């Protein structure tokens, strides 16, 4: 299994992602932002951080980095791409995923633990989870307020592209449990094919019991299981139009 972690200038979760992925025994490499080719990789991770300082809009400059041509090509060819936090913002900016990020509704950086409900367990990144499973992991962002217009949201929901939603202890999405004001409490979405996942929570920080939790391993483990051909995802992504969970 070959995994690449893209390093933009200003990425700061690159090493964290590297170590988390390495703990699965995967062959992981850093990919410098000036490279262009992603040949031979099975999974590409866009890590968190402040690419180019994010002085403009988070991810707005990183989308123009040379490697992003490669990422778009790789994704369009069906390769697995995982964008975490700043990586999610970059995926939105480059148009691989729909919608945009706004500043948190309480306009401050927020680092905290959140709960996510698995809304669609038929994606390459959630195939080992059961629908409705609640995962705990941290967030750390100032721009995580997911926004899309109503038509896009309806479409995302209808096609099962909403993979994770912020929920409370009871697994219910409430305004209090929504840490940033995201539309529909959205924490993570995929492309229609399901091969590109963007999510705000830092799953790489939830891969070790010593650091407070291992729920992030569900996502990585799912991706590796999918890549090794161990899961039949069923009709959802192949049909591009599946049931909601």
């Amino acid at each position, binding site marked *: 299994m070959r995994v690449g972690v893209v390093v933009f200038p200003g990425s700061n*979760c690159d090493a964290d992602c590297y170590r988390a992925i390495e703990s699965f025994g995967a062959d992981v490499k850093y990919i410098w932002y000036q490279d262009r080719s992603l040949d031979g990789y099975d999974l590409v991770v866009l890590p968190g951080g402040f690419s180019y300082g994010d002085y403009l809009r988070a991810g707005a400059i990183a989308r123009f980095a040379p490697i992003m041509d490669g990422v778009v090509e790789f994704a369009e060819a069906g390769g697995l791409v995982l964008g975490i936090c700043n990586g999610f913002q970059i995926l939105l900016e480059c148009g691989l995923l729909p919608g945009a990020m706004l500043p948190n509704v309480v306009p401050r950086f927020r680092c905290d633990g959140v709960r996510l409900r698995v809304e669609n367990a038929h994606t390459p990144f959630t195939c080992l989870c059961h629908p409705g499973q609640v995962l705990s992991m941290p967030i750390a962002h100032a721009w995580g307020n997911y926004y899309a217009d109503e038509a896009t949201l309806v479409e995302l929901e209808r096609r099962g592209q909403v993979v994770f939603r912020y929920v409370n202890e009871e697994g219910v999405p409430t305004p209090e449990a929504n840490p940033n004001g995201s539309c529909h409490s959205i924490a993570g979405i995929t492309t229609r094919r399901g091969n590109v996942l963007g999510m705000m929570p830092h799953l790489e920080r939830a891969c070790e019991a010593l650091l407070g939790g291992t729920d992030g391993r569900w996502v990585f483990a799912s991706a590796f299981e999918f890549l090794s051909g161990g899961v039949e995802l069923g009709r959802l992504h192949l049909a591009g139009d599946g049931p909601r969970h």
Partner: protein
Amino acid sequence: MGDCIWREMGLATEEYERILDILGREPNLVELGMFAVMWSEHCSYKNSRAVLGLLPTTGSRVIQGPGENAGVVDIGAGLAVVFKIESHNHPSAVEPYQGAATGVGGIIRDIFTMGARPIALLDALRFGPVSDARSRHLFAQVVAGIAGYGNSIGIPTVGGEVATHESFRESPLVNVMCVGVAPASAIKKAAARGLGNPVMVVGARTGRDGMHGATFASSELSPEAMAKRSAVQVGDPFMEKLLLEACLELYELGDDVVIGIQDMGAAGLTCSSCEMASRGGVGMEIDVAKVPRREKGMTPYEVMLSESQERMLVAVKAGSEPEVERVFRKWGLEATVVGHVTDDGILRIRDGDAVVAEVPAKALADMAPCYTRDASEPEYFRREQARDLADVPEPDDYACALMKLLASPRIASKEWVYSQYDHQVGTNTVVLPGRGTSVVRVPGTNKGLALTCDANSLYCYLDPWAGAAHAVAEAARNVAAAGAEPLGITDCLNFGNPEKPEVFWQFKRAVEGMAEAARALEIPVTGGNVSFYNESSKDGSSTVAVYPTPVVGMVGLIEDLSRVMTPGFKREGDIVAVLGRTRDEIGASEYLAEVHGIEGGPVPVVDLAAERAAIQLTLALIRGGLLSSCHDLSEGGLAVALSEACILGGIGSGIGARVRLPGTMRADRYLFSESGGRMLVSFHPSAASGVQAMAGRHGVPVTVLGEVGGMRLVIDGAGGTGGRARRVVDVPVSELSRVYRGAIAWALES
């Protein structure tokens, strides 16, 4: 030379005369500017050096004590921890966001200059009362500035402390501590050597920002000083992230490529060049015309005094310049040869062909005058020592008193603050802020570092000697409560104007107290920072000095992270006990201030032998696996420690406890006394005999109070002889938690 120029630059007439003696001529303007910044208090420690000599700075683990960019301590397995604290008080008073942000940037550079990767930040903050709108503004903006820089560069801010008091209304304190880890063999020094070796400026370009920042930081804050906004620098964490990665990559080119490296902080190019030359016993020639600028038309004077951020001065091995340039180019940065090492001890500044300054490097770096200022005991000192608190009445409602304490900014949860900091980036944070003493893993090992910074400004005002000694002891207890052996101290000494005898007395007594405690507990001081002139006047009225605040930053080592300890109660049925002796002493306590409105009285007795015994016992109990929880007792005493152990207990939702106070001491005295040398612990009943035996061997009294259980904190007063116990507190933990967690957000946002 014009009569007032040196005075405008902050030099005294006798200092100017000393410069004339050293040079044997009048300095030109560039030279004078260089002397002014290097001989400022901020760079030269001219008012503090003599007293700082009292601090113990050596120990078997110390690799580098004071004098370099940061202290270095051996943590075994070939690794070293590099740490330092620094103040950015003056800039933060004027421009809180950028002042705090560049404070973070500066201290991070100090750590990676030494060859270490920074892995954690902490900050100690002081503001005026939260009832004051401007203080709230400063509070919020300082926190935002720390967050803005630390989060972006990707170094977790894992802990710190915040307190508020009237004396900080115009002069907030912003102290930032950074901790890094490096192979012990790869520590870099800031000394230039080797005739002809090139000297390079790397990182950001030089602009006109931050001119005379060091001088600005060495005077009181007046309306005129507040107008010196150009003395405040602007931070660029993205640039520093690139600089950090580039420098760490540079070190990997080989041990011999980097001869010496120093960051350009206060006094910019002047300070870095003369200090590197002076440390190496060499001279240096710099051509300012070669320094990359971001502004046109800068004079040599401006280039030498600019405090533009995110720059380093590096002396490299001759011939390695192309390799160095390649590394920096990879990270999109410039690396420019601006001069070379000479052997004549002179710092020679050229502007192309013209020599614009020529001064012995040592004269700038090491020959500033050293003052021992007059010290006189302030009149309040003895009065407060003798203050009789016997008449302080018992509270009618203990629960209400406890709630007041839990809501006080010093004690309340700092969640509003630390939730704005990325405290987990780097995936090494084992104990998160708010859950106990912060613990970070030493990357790639099973060792941990417990990190804390502590000072009680009120204690230090009432009795600077005892206050500073308590700060050392409290920091050591904090570290030990996590199961860590204290390794070293970095201190940030925040005081008023040292030219005032009462302020200098506070300073001298505080350093003496810190020295005595550090010696008794065998914890060396490996470096730090002095910040004087934290005084301000409003509209020309007389100036107000801050309460003296010697912040103790401490690093402790946990050899085995599977034994890390936290303060929250864990299990129903565990026994709750206090280690150490509780005295009837409520002087200077948070209880006295918050509940009775008295900020005064004698500070709790300093008993360093008892502190030492309590710390050693705690470490032995934790290493022996006997404890379920451990919490040091400090502000708010036993009542607050019990509340926190309940709030942080269970599996996230809290857990209750039922305790009964022993002996005959009045309940408020026992509950709120801030006697030192104590820990609140809990342990399984089967461990009780082991705990007792070990405590006996260490000569530390153990007082069993009750047990963990339920969802309420229930405290019964002492029964007296045969009398019935009186219930003084019976509150749901959820209620304690609501007040404790919500108080700061409520105070700042409502």
